[in-house]
């Protein structure tokens, strides 16, 4: 800990094939140019950052995604998680590329020609609340009982009502997910199902899709979106580098 920090360090964006690797022309974090550190058939995309690089915000996050996006246009890229900073090129070589060369090469092959698409769905508030009321007698009755009475007089009833609704939403959340995922999975190579991160989130899943089949995949998403209109709003994000489908595993 007492070792003095060097002036600059290497921020790592992702891993590409070294053969014919030309770094993205667009600048990286702090407008620094993107460089390449190669080892055998694999190479890391890096740029200089201050040695004590610690704080990051919107601009840095955007630079990270921009570099990866540009890289994936010309070739396959394995994205790093945001925030990986290594002291120097030697460390990038010795701690990332050399020990994981085989795993990286394998995944570059696996991910070639494929992109990640995330599909999130949020229940429309009004429609899901109506569903909850129509399906749950206790909620419907309590709601009727409170109707038209002054707020102060029904404080505890309203808390009870809200509690019942929260529980009902809990039960419903994610119930629509398998149906949506099953429809899309045949058009994808792989699927990762994430946790709902919102109280009305119906589905949160990442799909690994071959570029060649992206059109088909998109059409099905649109179909599902149209069918669910008014009940669940789908959100499509992509194409992205395959963040959810890469991992380093155990190094050598």
């Amino acid at each position, binding site marked *: 800990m007492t070792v003095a920090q060097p002036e600059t360090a290497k921020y790592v964006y992702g891993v590409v094939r070294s053969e014919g690797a030309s770094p993205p022309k667009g600048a990286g974090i702090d407008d620094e140019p993107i460089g390449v550190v190669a080892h055998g058939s694999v190479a890391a995309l890096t740029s200089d950052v201050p040695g004590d690089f610690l704080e990051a915000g919107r601009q840095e996050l955007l630079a990270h995604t921009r570099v990866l996006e540009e890289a994936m246009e010309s070739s396959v890229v394995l994205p790093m998680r945001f925030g*990986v900073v290594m002291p120097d090129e030697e460390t990038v070589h010795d701690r990332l590329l050399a020990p994981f060369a085989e795993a990286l090469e394998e995944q570059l092959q696996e991910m070639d020609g494929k992109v990640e698409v995330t599909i999130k769905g949020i229940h429309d508030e009004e429609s899901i609340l*109506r569903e909850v009321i129509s399906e749950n007698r206790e909620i419907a009755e309590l709601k009727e009982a409170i109707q038209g009475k002054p707020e102060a007089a029904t404080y505890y009833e309203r808390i009870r*009502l809200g*509690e019942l609704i929260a529980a009902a939403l809990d039960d419903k959340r994610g119930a629509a997910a398998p149906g949506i995922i099953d429809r899309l999975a045949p058009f994808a190579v792989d699927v990762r199902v994430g946790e709902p991160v*919102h109280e009305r989130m119906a589905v949160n899943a990442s799909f690994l899709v071959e570029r060649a089949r992206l059109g088909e995949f998109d059409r099905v998403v649109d179909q599902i979106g149209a069918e669910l*209109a008014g009940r669940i709003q789908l959100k499509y994000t992509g194409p992205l580098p395959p963040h*959810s489908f*890469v991992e380093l595993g155990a190094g050598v």
Partner: protein
Amino acid sequence: MATAMQQPYRGGSGYVARSSSSGLYDVLELILDKGLVIDVFVRVSLIGIEILTIDARIVIASVDTYLRFAEAVNRLDLMSTETQGLPELMEGITEGGASKKTQGVLQGAKEALFGDEDEEDEEKEEEPATKRQRSSSTTAKRRRASSSSSSGSSQRRSKGS
């Protein structure tokens, strides 16, 4: 904008909200939580990471949450039940996925982190940059307080489940 190759098919239905990685908010979860990583070399403390944790809030058992739900249900009566299922209902749905009637948690977190700009604005980089600077001075204290770096995302996950 190099989007021709990335978007071979642009859906015509209009029912699905779309964005690419230039819509930063939509990829935050991915770039902060997924991808290749060597833990000892993660050297970053994120400005606004404590706000990101709000993103993971599911239903939190609290009186405030319950009262909010009760209010939302009672409000349903003010709207005509006849419009249910009709296209008018769609007008209430915004690009961000949250209904405009409620400030959804996602929306709230988004505003807290990025200001009130929309995704469309994120493509224009200059303007948000100035917003960022303005707000960064106010978050400076919190930033320092939350110096634990990568733990943010794992906290987020455990809190969510």
